[in-house]
Each structure stands twice: as C-alpha cells, then as structure tokens.
C-alpha cells in the first residue's frame, strides 16, 4: 500500500530530516508510528498524504504518487492532523459539504460513532471543545471508508473514556481493504490495536516489526531482581522491582509493553534489533 524508497526530505537545504528513508506498509493493518518529538513522524505522514514533497527518492501510495494529489488518490486517503480548526458551521453542514467527495462514505458509520462519542449533529463545530472536535474528525475520517487513514496524535485532547472508545472503534473498522497509520508519542494509547510498530529516530526508521514478530522474539515482564543469567535487553527500575525486556528463547508469549519497547529501542536499538536476527 505504501512504499517509501531512498526518500530525502528537509525543510531547508541545510536541515535535512530524512536522508535515505525506506519503509513499506501493507494493506489491512494498523501501523503505529512512534518516535519522540521532532523525530519526523508528522513529516512522514504529510509526505504520504502529499502535503509535502520529497526532495528525491520515491514515495508511492496505492500506486499513486502523493505529490500529484490526484483526486482519485485523495478520495482514498484521509489525514487527521494533530492540530486543526473548523469553519463556523454545524456538524450536519460539514458532513453535507465534505461527505460528497468520498464515494464510500457511510452515514451509518458516522451516526454510530457520533452516538458513541456523544456528539449531536446540530452542534456548531467551532463551539466544540478541542477533544470534541477531534472526536468528530475521527468519526468523519472513519466514515469516509478511505483505504488509508493517517492519524497524527489522534488521542491528544481525548479524555480517558474517549481514548478507550477510540481503541475499540479503530479495532472495529479496520478491515482487509484498508490501513491505518497512527503516529503518537503516547504509546500506551495504542495498546492492543497495532499490527506493526515503526519507530523513527532522527529521520530514520530504526525499528520496523510486526506485533507477531515482536511477540515471538521479545519478552516483557517484571522481575524483583536483575538476574545475571537473564539476557536483558533493557531494564527499567520501578517500585518493587524491574521491568525488563529480554530475548524470547522459549517461545513464551507475553503482552507487549509498547512503552518498554520504545524505551529499549531508544536506549540501544542495535541490541534490540539483533534479537530479531
């Protein structure tokens, strides 16, 4: 679905963000794009959406070149930015004006999610709180039935119950024909919904594995003492013991702790990546 090859991009000639960026994402999956602030997550999403143009290299999405902004391509992608604002029209009017551009738009899905997020269609968009606006835009994005959804920090501004609803909704509406790419630095918000994790650091993909691969190669657990026999890839001291990441040598299955994984990559990416070889 998405193929990025040797992509070079920078906001100025001197400040190059991506030098030889490579990434591939397939259809039917939820991708988590992780990285600290300024790592290039939003830039990567904008390059995929065609809002920014690569200086060199290749970026293709569903066989389209995003920078051409072909209307048929735009009908199949929806980008939910971290920050946005709406015109002063009602939810109803916005839906009427924008839904016509998306041939697969489903009113049923829209109504369902609006009910779930407790939003009324006669409410004025600019009178909503930031969290409510975000919930509306997420609802609209999902109801367009676009093949590719790009969500930039989608849980920012959502309250705790809404974050959990968001996870459920994402899990409900992913299918074999579409993909979601979710960029976040709040990794706990993406618990249990990801199929793949991509971590970028200083404009480079430093980790790109499926959840199955991670589960089969790494173990996440809590121990009281650090044992010398354990091949610890990363440890984090906390009250009453240590959270550790170790190699999975006995085909054991543990729940992935995304935060631990992210910290482990941050601390020593070569060490962790070697566990997959």
């Amino acid at each position, binding site marked *: 679905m998405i193929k990025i090859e040797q992509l070079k991009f920078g906001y100025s000639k001197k400040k190059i963000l991506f030098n030889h960026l490579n990434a591939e994402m397939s259809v039917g999956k939820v991708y988590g794009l992780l990285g600290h602030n300024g790592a290039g997550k939003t830039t990567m999403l904008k390059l995929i959406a065609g809002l920014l*143009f690569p200086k060199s290299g290749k970026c293709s999405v569903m066989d389209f070149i995003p920078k051409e902004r072909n*209307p048929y391509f735009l009908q199949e992608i929806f980008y939910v930015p971290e920050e*946005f604002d709406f015109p002063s029209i009602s939810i109803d009017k916005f839906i009427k004006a924008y839904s016509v551009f998306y041939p697969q738009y489903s009113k049923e899905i829209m109504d369902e999610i609006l009910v779930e997020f407790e939003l009324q269609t006669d409410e004025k968009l600019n009178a909503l709180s930031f969290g409510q606006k975000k919930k509306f835009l997420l609802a609209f994005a999902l109801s367009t039935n676009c093949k590719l959804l790009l969500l930039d920090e989608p849980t920012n501004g959502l309250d705790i119950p809404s974050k959990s609803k968001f996870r459920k909704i994402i899990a409900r509406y992913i299918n074999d024909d579409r993909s979601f790419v979710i960029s976040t630095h709040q990794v706990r918000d993406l618990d249990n919904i990801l199929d793949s994790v991509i971590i970028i650091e200083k404009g480079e993909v430093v980790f790109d594995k499926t959840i199955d691969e991670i589960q089969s190669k790494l173990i996440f657990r809590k121990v009281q003492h650090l044992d010398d026999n354990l091949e610890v890839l990363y440890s984090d001291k906390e009250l009453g013991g240590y959270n550790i990441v170790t190699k999975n040598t006995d085909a054991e299955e543990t729940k992935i702790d995304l935060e631990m994984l992210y910290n482990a990559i941050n601390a020593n990416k070569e060490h962790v990546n070697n566990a997959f070889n």
Partner: protein
Amino acid sequence: MQLMQIKSMLIMHLINYKKGMNKYFNIKRFANLVKRELHSNMKRNLLIIGAMFSIFTISAFLVFELGEEITSEITFEKFHSMVFLGMLFTGGAFLASFSFIELRNKINAHFYLLTPGSSLEKLLVNLLISLVGFIVFMMLFYFLYSQVFNWIVSAIFGYQFSNVDFLHEEVISSIQVFISVHSIFLLGAISFKKYPVILTPIFIFLVNITLFGFVRLVGFAVFGDFDIDNQLFSKEIFDKLNLYSKIIIIYIIPPVLWFVTYLKLNEKEL
C-alpha cells in the same frame, strides 16, 4: 472475432482516456467543490459586497447633501457607469484576494489541499465564483440597486442619473481590464501568505515603477536628452503601442497568470 477485439480495445482505450482526463476535470467533483466553496465562503463574500454598497450609499448621500449641487450633464450620464466599475474593481480585488484563504491558515490548509479535487478544478471554482459569478451578480444587483437609488435620489435631491449601459464600449473594455486585474489579485492571493489585498497593489505599483524607471533609463542611455516622446514616436506608433498593450492586458496577462496560479496551487506544500 478480430473486429470484436478491436472494438473492446477501443472501448478500453476510451475508458482509460476518460479516466485520465477525469483526474484533471470531472463535472460532478467540480459541482461539489463549488458547493463546498459557497458553504465556506459565501457569507464573507456577501459581507464584502454589502459593506461596499453601504459605504457608497452613505457617502453618496452625504456628498449630495453637503456638497455642491450637481449640474454637469456628463456626471448625470456617467455616474452609475463609474460607480459600477469602481465597485466592480474594488469588490473584485477583495474577492480575488480572499481566494484560497484556507491556504493562509496552516492549521486548516490540509482540509483544502486534501479535498478530493484537482488543482485545475480548485482554480476554476475560484474563477467561477470571484470572477464570472461576481461580474454577473454585480450587473444584476447593480441594475436593481441603481433603480432604487435613482428613485430615492430623485425624490430627495431631484437628480436624474442615467442607468448603466452594460453594452457600452467603455464598460465592456473596462470589464476586460477588470478580468486582467482580477487575475493579478488571484495570483497575489496564492503568493502572499498575509494581507494579499494590500500587498498585491503595492507589488503592482513597485513593478510599474521599476518598469517605468527601466524604460526611462534605457531611453536616456540610447537617446540622451532627446525628447523621444514627442519627436521620435508618431501617432501611428502610439496607436500601435496602444493596441499591443490592449492585447497584452486583455488576452495575454489573464491566461498567463491563471496558469501561474495553477502551478503555484499544484506546488503548494504545508
């Protein structure tokens, strides 16, 4: 059998061609973009027009009341034509400058750029609304307005102004110049991130000054103190220059600037 194959190949070719063309222009998508534009910006456009008419009406009544009595025949004859053209240029400059307004707000620009429509369609929407639509609207509305205006002015001040003759040569050529000016403001709207309605005329002024200075400098370098305006150029040459500048203003500037605006829209990044 072979004929059938050729026929199906031709049909496939036609479908692909149509699909290829559709990525640039599709009437249904275009109509949706027009609706979207009206939804988002119509209120603002009407406010601009309303403000313009209100300011003029108040000013005109103040001048009639406080100023000297109007006696000139030309004034009675051309009053509405001049006011109509003044409003057309002023309103048009404002409306054109507010085109692509979403692109000036970084937070909202992605909505505009990612709305499924081609750059050509997005440009044509702006031309349809702020140029064609505005000219037609102004003709109809100004005609009605002038009737009411004349009736009230005649009742209060006793003045009888002639109606605008939209088919008069001067009005038609002024509208042609307006199309050219509009194309400059449209380009300004996509080029300047802030205050295009102010920066575009400043830019035009600076370009004119530079060009004028350059021509004078070249003239001085080539002819020295020789009075080129009066002695070298005959009336014939001036007529020719007049014709060429008309061709440039009416037929060359608008399509060239529309094309540049299209390219700028195509290349817009966030």
